[in-house]
């Protein structure tokens, strides 16, 4: 049973996860096809972050299965490095390496992990920084950049590994309102280029605009999902309705 590009790129099936006594995921299933952009929304603590952290094995799961390009993530024998070359991740707190410049942040993993040629990796890194509209900031340290700029470096850093899918965990939540826009624009560009994206976000307008599919989670289960047009205007579940009424 080998994976073909026609199969889901990420396939999550009945995933359960607890931290000690706390049940965080209670049987979550969803599929992401190549080129899809899906958004996961839901109240705080509903398990959104946990879910996407499970996809690149930052958290393990207790039950269920997560397949990435047909490969089981929840397998003790899994080669985590191989998985992580395929799955990129961008965090809420950017997590840039503060002792390296923007350029170094972007080219370090290709050089050290993928053993790419340095000159080539640098060229690619400069291109990526240009793509996220950060020409001229190559030699700035993270501490010298605004939140939005740092987050765009983080996106470029993730892209440098040429992943097949990227996970975004509330990447605009820690930003000043003024710089949220530039980061969202960057993600939109990516989506338009056909990158497979899984986004956790609170930016409903953005979700509506870019997502192919919206999932609403509450207390560890997916309560409702659907394409944005249907989801936002015709939510049926009372919890979804309440959440949307509060946030819109």
């Amino acid at each position, binding site marked *: 049973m080998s994976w073909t590009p026609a199969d889901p790129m990420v396939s999550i099936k009945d995933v359960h996860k607890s931290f000690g006594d706390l049940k965080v995921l209670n049987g979550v299933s969803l599929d992401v096809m190549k080129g899809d952009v899906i958004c996961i929304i839901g109240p705080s603590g509903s398990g959104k972050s946990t879910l996407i952290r499970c996809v*690149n094995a*930052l958290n393990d799961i207790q039950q269920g299965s997560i397949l990435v390009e047909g490969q089981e993530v929840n397998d003790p024998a899994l080669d*985590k*490095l191989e998985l*992580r*070359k395929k*799955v*990129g*991740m961008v*965090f809420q*707190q950017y*997590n*840039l*390496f*503060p*002792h390296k410049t923007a350029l170094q942040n972007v080219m*370090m*993993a290709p050089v*050290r*992990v993928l053993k790419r040629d340095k000159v080539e990796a640098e060229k690619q890194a400069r291109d990526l920084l240009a793509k996220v509209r950060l020409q001229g900031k190559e030699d700035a340290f993270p*501490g010298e950049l605004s939140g939005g700029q740092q987050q765009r470096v*983080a996106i470029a*850093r*993730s892209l440098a*590994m040429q992943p097949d899918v990227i996970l975004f965990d509330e990447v605009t939540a820690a930003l000043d309102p003024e710089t949220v826009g530039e980061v969202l624009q960057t993600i939109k560009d990516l989506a338009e280029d056909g990158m497979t994206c899984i986004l956790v976000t609170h930016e409903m307008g953005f979700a509506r605009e870019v997502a192919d599919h919206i999932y609403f989670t509450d207390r560890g289960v997916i309560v409702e999902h659907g394409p944005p047009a249907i989801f936002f205007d015709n939510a049926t579940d009372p919890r979804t309705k309440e959440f949307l009424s509060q946030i819109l």
Partner: protein
Amino acid sequence: MTFKTDLPVMMPVKPHEPEPFLRLKLWHVVPIALLCIVGTTLAFAADGDAKQSPLAVLMNWAPLLLRGFIFNLVISVSAMALGTAVGALLGLGQISPNRIMSGGSWFVTQFFRNAPWLVLLFFAMFLLPFELSILGLKIPFPDWFKAILGLSLPVMANVSEIVRGAVKSLPSGQWEAAESLAYTRRQTLWLIILPQCVKRMLPPWMNLYSILTMATVLASIVGVSEVMTLTGRALSAEGGRPELLAPFYGFVLLLFFVYCYPIARYTVRLEKKFAVIN
């Protein structure tokens, strides 16, 4: 049920540079302390004795005492170098994912951290052989060398804790970011974590050096000819005159103050500087 909060319930505890002591530049301290010594000296000299004044006596002995002090510094630098080298390894052992390795390193660290310096010094002094024979080659272990070994034990344990503390103090996001970029653990440690730790480790490391320098006088108790030992012998050679005690011990205090105070100031400045960057 708990809620996470970003509110400033407690501000970070930050180091602060104490206001300069009497707004003095360092070199001011020297004449002032000398004045104090001369002061006590004159008070006693008023007894009107044919004997040399305490100050004159101190001056006679000062070159010898200074030589002793330099010996203290040599001991401190060597013990620091040795302790840092071994302690860094031990610290890395403490954060190793291997349970036996981390447990063992933890135990060694705790054992030597909890033992009084003086006891460790006695330990090294009396229980190490005076020379080691390796392949017929005799390597002598003179007293001062044993003192260095003895003092480097607690330094080692403290450096180990400094390394562990610095690594632990980095936000877990740094580990996770590196992990999700497919770095191996070793790469993460050497490329991402440790380079960031060096800065964090420098201030406590310098602090430790300062403490070590002050601990070198303990070697006097086990008979190494450093400044305190020489002071005792000088006092004895002068026949145990009580009026000599204040100037002599005052002089030793002064020597250490002049050496350690600038280090302390510089340490605080570094702490502040790095606190701003991070």
